[in-house]
């Protein structure tokens, strides 16, 4: 029982971190209809900028300044890159963001090198918040949960309750009408892209100290973020939240409980073959859940795409 509680908290941290990335990505998708492959690269930039700034201003300064810089960089990419490629169609846009992801990884290696950066969290949060049956929960994790939830609340409030949010929502569905009403739609798009990447930047700053700040960090999380928003339904904020939490919990539980394939198969009535060492499916029989924890989201995504292509909460069929 206590282990379940600890895993619930760990899964929540992973899920909410994923959500901070997927929220920005899904907003950008519903706006421009293109999946931003470089989204996780902005997360990585957030971590690296955060590290560099924390050397001068400390962690809290970095948490404030780094996302702003990342957001400005993102807005610049939209203004001078994506808007230009947009005229060629969706596939070149996708290819452009893919190339950008490659380029940002090379750029980070060029500036900071290939090694992991010693990016540490703030001293203030360096204590144990509470312990559950001997498993201590660091305060930093609680802080991460707190930050992500407040960002989600803020985003939801801005999008549904304020005037700016109304205009954004209208611009997502009827850009031409909104433009005819006198709003600057390209500017709105640029702003949303900037805010989305800035959110990724926040995620980078707070994940950098825990998950490590290294050039491969975008690649590790990048494809999982796609999987998340595809499962949740492209363009749906609630879908992104549900899918993020789902993936966070599935991977955490699969890693901490060692379920063996042999036990599962025996449980549903298939007997173990006598001579496993020569059997063609020997690796299949030896599978354990920690082994496949990292590929479970992909399996889930392929299944979702086959049986419910619009995702869990998606409305449209692209």
């Amino acid at each position: 029982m206590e282990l379940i509680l600890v895993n619930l908290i760990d899964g929540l941290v992973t899920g909410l971190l994923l959500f901070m990335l997927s929220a920005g990505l899904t907003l950008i998708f519903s706006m421009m209809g293109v999946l931003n492959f470089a989204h996780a690269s902005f997360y990585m930039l957030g971590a690296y900028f955060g590290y560099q700034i924390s050397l001068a201003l400390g962690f809290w300064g970095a948490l404030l300044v780094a996302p702003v810089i990342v957001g400005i960089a993102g807005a610049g990419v939209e203004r001078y890159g994506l808007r230009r490629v947009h005229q060629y169609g969706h596939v070149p846009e996708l290819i452009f963001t893919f190339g950008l992801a490659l380029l940002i990884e090379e750029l980070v290696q060029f500036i900071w090198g290939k090694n992991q950066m010693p990016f540490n969290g703030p001293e203030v949060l360096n204590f144990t918040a509470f312990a559950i049956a001997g498993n201590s929960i660091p305060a930093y994790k609680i802080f991460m949960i707190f930050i992500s939830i407040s960002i989600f609340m803020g985003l939801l409030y801005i999008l549904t309750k304020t005037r700016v949010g109304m205009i954004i929502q209208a611009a997502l569905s009827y850009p031409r009408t909104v433009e005819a009403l006198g709003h600057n739609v390209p500017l709105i798009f640029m702003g949303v892209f900037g805010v989305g990447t800035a959110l990724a930047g926040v995620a980078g700053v707070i994940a950098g100290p825990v998950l490590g700040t290294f050039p491969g960090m975008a690649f590790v999380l990048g494809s999982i973020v796609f999987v998340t928003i595809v499962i949740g339904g492209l363009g749906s904020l609630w879908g992104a939240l549900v899918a993020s939490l789902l993936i966070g919990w599935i991977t955490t539980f699969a890693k901490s409980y060692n379920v063996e394939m042999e036990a599962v198969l025996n449980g549903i009535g298939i007997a173990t073959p006598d001579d496993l060492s020569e059997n063609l499916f020997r690796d299949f029989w030896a599978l354990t859940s920690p082994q496949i924890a990292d590929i479970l989201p992909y399996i889930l995504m392929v299944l979702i795409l086959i049986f419910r292509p619009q995702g869990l909460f998606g409305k449209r069929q692209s």
Partner: protein
Amino acid sequence: MSDQITTDPSKPAQRMRAGSMTLTLGPWIVAAILLAALPFIFTSNSGLTIMNQMWITVVFALAYNMLLGQGGMLSFGHAVYAGVGGFACMHIMNASDFFASMPLPLLPIFGGLFGMGLALIVGAFSTRSAGTVFAMISLGVGELIAACSVIIVAFFGGEEGISGDRGEALPFFGLNFWSQIEVYYLTAFWVFISAVLMYLWSRTPVGRMANAVRDNPERAEFLGYSSRWVRFYSFVASGFFAGVAGGLFAINYEILTEENLNAASSGVILLVTFLGGVGFFFGPILGAIVFTLVQTVLSLETELWAFYAGSLFVATVMFFPGGLAGLIMMHVPPLRLGKLGVLTVPYIKTLIPAAIGILGLCSLVEMTFHYRHAATGDHEMTLFWTTFDSHTILPWIIAGAVTLIGLGIARTTAPALKEAWNDANTAGGKR
């Protein structure tokens, strides 16, 4: 975007030609002679290795372009089909009785069949729609199989991969394929056959329908074609040729690892194909040749070659979405008008300063890299055959000045080039 054949309905001969499987013989004969003659020009072993790698990439890139260029399907996991074909070939190589009774040159067929088999399974559900959903499924399946390669050790060999020995095959007209040159001709033979087959495929009705479905699936449906099945056929054919490329890889390198399956390889083939140009049949061939040269030659010169390749790729997507092939074919209209000469002087005036400016920029990048990452105390670096101290101010001033002057001249002469370009594309007028 594509090499569309424009036909004049009033001329029956031309109308026939558009649908029939004609093959302009000239370029193919030249290609065959080049393939056969190149080993006599580049006789060194490293030259042969680079060429083998190049031709394998050519087959793979052409297979990839069957999807991206001709079918409009963007795949982020195509390395999987080549990889699985290669792994299957490796297993056939290790199966002693079967392999010993079969000549080696037949092996790529089996690679192709296994690639096609996997494409049949995946295509059954992934080709239902094009665009983003297809791209996402291809990414998911790609990641899935790449991750499986570490888990399913029996087939993929885990971390260290699977290796074999190509020399165990039945000798083929007295050839054992022990030396590099014999492997070269085997590869060249398969490259030629695959390229011809893929070209002919693009001329068949199903190849033509793939173009139609790419451009306007709704209209193709109204004509009575199922866009899903058209996509499926393209996908399966592409899987076959990707598998052939994997089989050639297995013969050439005699080892396959997880690296042949992962997302990075899939990304590289996308890069190669797009760089070459997706709109023309010869684009991916060009891309594969240029990219392999850049990879092998540039990576000897600088650690930052991936950075340059990435910059080149992004620049291509932004400014020349037709790729290298598109850039070359842009010059066909001026050539037809006989006004290519108009462009020569403006090109020299703009492109040479621009090239010098870009080289200056590259040296600034290299110097920054050296300044930041060289071992402490190591101040000496060599760039463009000159050795200097990267911690003094003089080289920085020179490189900066070269960059500014080069790009500055290119900027001032660019309007003249644009004017000349417009003039070259207009019929009549001054020569």
